[in-house]
């Protein structure tokens, strides 16, 4: 097991490098000269030449990648074409906002999913099961940006209960866990939570049903073990897989919040990406994708490690 851990960690390094390469290639596959993708269109000629030298754009591709990688490792993700600010300065605040939103949404999805999935798995074939399963399927099938729009119309515009946009009365910079700020979080978090809810429901339902059918549970039940006892047993056995699903969902939400953030003007990485696409600001696009993908790689690793630690039965070749 120890060797597995070491190997798993070592294996993440080439993956991270390769992910970096894919992100590097984003600027290369963009139509036109890559130089136009990273300097403003109206930059004077000498500035263009300076950047060309800095990034080694006259050198072969592997060398360019090396130069780019060195810059990235030092925390230099380039400069935004639109604002001239360093990509990292905008990205760092955006990431914490997205992390906040994604964490709340995946917790919400996880809790709801566990409840629905647990009920469905316990009462398989019943009305409850069918209702929970339907909600789960609806959750994974609904275009969530559309759901977000509908929620805004109902709760912000018609009922005037919740704000429609933004991350608080003073912006994200003075975020606090008070009602004034938290009510900005409700609609985007609910919208973003429907997918993990659906997925967790399905997973938990399957896990619970499987465990409940196992002979020893039947045996326990025969011995007159209370519902509570069985519940503890089920939770203990289902937890590692459910946690793994939830961990990955956090990663998916981090990367997948672009549409929801756009609908709610949530100042996170998704809105940053959307603006970058809208303004064709490739350095921002590239930097954001890179950081999100790296986050996902790290999260994958963490989930694997935690899962292995929690459930030693999982055999890893």
């Amino acid at each position, binding site marked *: 097991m120890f060797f597995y851990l070491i190997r798993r960690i070592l294996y993440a390094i080439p993956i991270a490098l390769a992910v970096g390469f894919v992100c590097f290639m*984003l600027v290369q596959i963009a139509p036109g000269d890559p130089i136009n993708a990273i300097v403003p269109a109206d930059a004077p000629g000498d500035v263009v030449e300076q950047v060309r030298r800095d990034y080694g754009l006259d050198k072969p591709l592997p060398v360019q990648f090396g130069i780019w990688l060195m810059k990235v490792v030092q925390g230099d993700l380039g400069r935004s074409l639109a604002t001239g600010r360093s990509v990292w300065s905008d990205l760092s605040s955006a990431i914490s906002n997205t992390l906040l939103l994604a964490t709340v949404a995946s917790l919400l999805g996880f809790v709801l999913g566990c409840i629905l999935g647990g009920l469905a798995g316990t009462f398989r074939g019943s009305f409850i099961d069918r209702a929970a399963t339907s909600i789960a399927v*609806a959750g994974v099938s609904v275009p969530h*940006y559309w759901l977000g729009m509908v929620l805004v119309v109902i709760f912000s515009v018609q009922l005037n209960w919740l704000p429609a946009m933004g991350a608080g009365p003073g912006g994200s910079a003075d975020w606090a866990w008070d009602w004034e700020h938290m009510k900005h979080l409700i609609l985007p978090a609910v919208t973003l939570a429907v997918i993990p809810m659906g997925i967790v429901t399905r997973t938990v339902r399957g896990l619970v049903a499987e465990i409940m059918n196992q002979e020893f549970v039947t045996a326990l039940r025969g011995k007159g073990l209370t519902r509570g006892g069985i519940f503890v047993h089920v939770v203990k056995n289902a937890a590692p897989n459910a946690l793994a699903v939830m961990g990955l969902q956090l990663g998916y939400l981090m*990367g997948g919040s*672009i549409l929801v953030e756009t609908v709610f003007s949530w100042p996170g990485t998704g809105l940053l990406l959307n603006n970058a696409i809208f303004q064709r600001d490739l350095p921002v696009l590239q930097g954001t994708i890179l950081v999100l993908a790296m986050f*996902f790689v790290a999260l*994958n690793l963490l989930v694997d490690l935690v899962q292995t630690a929690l459930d030693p039965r999982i055999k890893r070749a």
Partner: protein
Amino acid sequence: MSTTSSTPTAAEAELAIQARQAAARSQGYWAGVWKRLRRDPVTIVCALVLLAMFLAIVFAPLIAPHDPYQGSMLRRLRPIGTENHILGTDELGRDMLTRLLHGGRLSWFMGITPVFLAFVIGTTLGVLAGFAGGRVNMAIMRATDVFYAFPSVLLAVAISGALGAGIVNAILALTLVFIPPIIRVAESVTTGVRNLDFVDAARASGAGAFTIVRVHVLGNVLGPIFVYATSLISVCMILASGLSFLGLGTRPPEPEWGLMLNTLRTAIYVQPWVAVLPGACIFVTSICFNLLSDGLRQAMDVKG
């Protein structure tokens, strides 16, 4: 949007089992599948809904009451139930029913094409990896791991964002998103089948690698991969319309549900029910494909 890869390990394991079961199938297998399907009303209803939609959009030019591009400012944003315009009109006064029927063509096309392309490419690579093993397997699977390191939405947005807007770029991006999960499934199923006795027997009797793949492996792995691929169609449709929603997919005046949803957004205060129609279409299609895929999986998997 990320149902595809929620639990790759669990799905793979399940599919590997399926493959083993598939290997033991008798001639009565498909009869059994059909029998189980017939007893599953949800799946049948979904299949019928999808069939009806498919026919409607294929024959859209024949059955649509109006021209999808021609509108009139005088009758824009009419409510549902207006005479001559059963589903109302859009922001340019074009008939919604007509636009939805025509729009379905592009939405379905963009939902199915990437999955189909990914199915062909992913199966080829996955079977190759599973059957060849060794270094080939290593190379293909490690490359797959790299793309797995991106959340699917992010990868689609990244690639089409870098390439620029357009249908072709969107399809290209979505295909790239769906190849890795299909490779993984195909590889694990093939590896499962490869080690089975009858393949060994075939090999012993002197059959060439190509024949073995064609006769024994493909026959047994296509089913499970196909089922898996149908579950991707729903994800792909939502992603494709999401790209159009962001302005990265279809271009006006082409009707497409995601783009229609985007352009009708401003009408959500005037005719909310008309404005949500394209979203509802995406929703219904996606939910039907999901349920159909579940039903197929259950029917083809004895474990049910």
